[in-house]
């Protein structure tokens, strides 16, 4: 299977579930900002969760099917169409050769993930196919996708992918009636981000903590895959001691010198020296990934134990989903 990029979009890169094994060498995790959507797109095809996907930010892109394709997409921020027909999310899509797929901007959200049966075929760099733009490695030649790029799938398909292909193939666009209901795994409110108090939570005054847990914050214009600058109340320190650099990770909320908060995202550095007021619950990082500059949200405090329970429950739900997709083949 092969596609050609006709229009590159705002920021389109290859991402999988990230590069965890080289953090000690200061190689960022990277990977899909909304890993839940990337995994759902892969699961819908019977792929392994860590198959490479294309992360399209704010859409505005177009691709052409140079061969027949079996693809799936998930996330928010864009809708795929072919000849003005909307392609539904979260299910396998058979697209015959010679179609132009438009990736159009949607009202809510920022990022969608386009998966293909077998995953996109790019080399593994340090154990991952994710693109890390600041150092120019991983993904497709270490860079954003550009007009004219040709991308292939990896040739090894799972039995589930082969079965979907056999069932759906033909001379027209085809897809099953079912879809994965990713929404059911998300909390009721998409603009409430759950946090656990960070290591230096106690370094800030009472008013700052009240603001942190009750006021609205907005995603700043200077936000990218490394992190979001948050607009809103400033956090005032009561402890002024210098903090020695230590490990940080996506979801860490740091407070910079001027009291502004920075929410670290997928491409963040591996160590940092700003006080950490909070840590976003792992299960809510996908919600953060869908926030756009200007969007407002609130933080909700939960305990470390609740965050851990949520993470494990989410993984159980996802494992069940894999089985459910396999069952679609058996019927």
């Amino acid at each position, binding site marked *: 299977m092969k596609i050609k990029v006709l229009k590159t979009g705002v920021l389109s890169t290859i991402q999988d579930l990230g590069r*965890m*094994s*080289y*953090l*000690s*060498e*200061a*190689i*960022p995790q990277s990977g899909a900002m909304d890993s839940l959507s990337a995994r759902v797109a892969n699961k819908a095809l019977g792929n392994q969760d860590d198959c490479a996907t294309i992360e399209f930010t704010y859409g505005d892109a177009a691709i052409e099917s140079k061969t027949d394709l079996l693809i799936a997409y998930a996330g928010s921020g864009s809708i795929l169409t072919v000849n003005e027909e909307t392609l539904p999310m979260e299910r396998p899509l058979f697209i015959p050769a010679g179609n132009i797929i438009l990736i159009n901007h949607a009202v809510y959200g920022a990022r969608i993930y386009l998966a293909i049966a077998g995953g996109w075929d790019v080399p593994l*760099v*340090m154990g991952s196919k994710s693109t890390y733009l*600041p*150092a120019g*490695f*991983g993904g497709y030649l270490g860079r954003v996708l550009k007009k004219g790029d040709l991308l292939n799938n990896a040739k090894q398909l799972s039995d589930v992918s082969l079965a979907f292909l056999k069932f759906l193939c033909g001379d027209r666009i085809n897809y099953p009636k079912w879809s994965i209901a990713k929404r059911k795994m998300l909390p009721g409110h998409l603009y409430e981000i759950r946090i*656990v108090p960070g*290591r230096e939570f106690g370094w800030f005054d009472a008013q700052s903590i009240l603001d942190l847990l009750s006021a609205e914050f907005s995603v700043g214009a200077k936000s990218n895959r490394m992190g979001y600058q948050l607009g809103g109340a400033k956090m005032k320190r009561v402890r002024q001691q210098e903090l*020695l*650099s*230590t*490990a*940080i*990770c996506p*979801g*860490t909320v740091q407070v910079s010198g001027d009291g502004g908060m920075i929410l670290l995202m997928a491409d963040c*550095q*591996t*160590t*940092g020296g700003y006080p950490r007021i909070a*840590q976003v*619950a*792992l299960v809510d990082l996908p919600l953060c990934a869908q926030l756009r500059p200007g969007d407002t949200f609130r933080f909700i405090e939960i305990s*470390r*134990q609740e*965050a*851990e329970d949520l*993470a*494990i429950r989410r*993984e159980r739900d996802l494992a069940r989903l894999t089985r459910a997709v396999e069952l679609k083949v058996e019927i």
Partner: protein
Amino acid sequence: MTNLFIDIYALNEGAVTVVFGEEINLILAGKIRRFNETISRYPFPGMITTVAAYTSLTVFYDPVTLFGAGLPGLSNFDKITHYLKNLAIETNLDEVMPTKIVVPVCYGGTMGPDLDLVATAKKLTSAEIIEFHSSATYYVHMIGFVPGFAYLGGMNPELNMPRKTQPRAIVKAGSVGIAGAQTGIYSLDTPGGWQIIGRTPLRMFDAERQQPSLLQSGYEVVFKPVTMKEFEYLKAHNDEN
């Protein structure tokens, strides 16, 4: 219970940070290095990797694998705390010697544009700056900032020098710089504010290499002055090393 480390806290649902002390010193650094070596030799189920820093070691793990592994404790945090405390008691932590790396550096000129500036500020000659900088043994406290960037401790306090007030838009990979009491080597072309006194021909970071970062936390480093000619030769023969 052991007093090897003083605290453990959760960074997120897939990482805990073990705190060994509160200030930078070599005794603490040695403890962190040995504990890192030990846990790498005896990983727990689901452990992914570790990140050493000045006073801490962060251990990353897969929450589902750890949770299902049957270690004592009701939560992952309890399981890991229990495991790490036992590990600290049961293992012999005194046997690991640090790896030593010799880093050739061409000091001054276009390679080290701030050398003369540092010399003037310190009321020393450039030759003395080079002598001081290349006669110490440095310790890699951590790799951070960008891939392969090593924070080195152990610099002669005579060389302490604040960062540049106006950072450079691009500092070339291999540049050796001073910032406060620290010295370090830029691993990639990046913006930077350190005072640049020389450059190494070694490739500090290479995504294609088996070990992408030449330096690892816990290594010892010595700088060896080389001429421009030697620099060019070594750079041309980088791939053979």
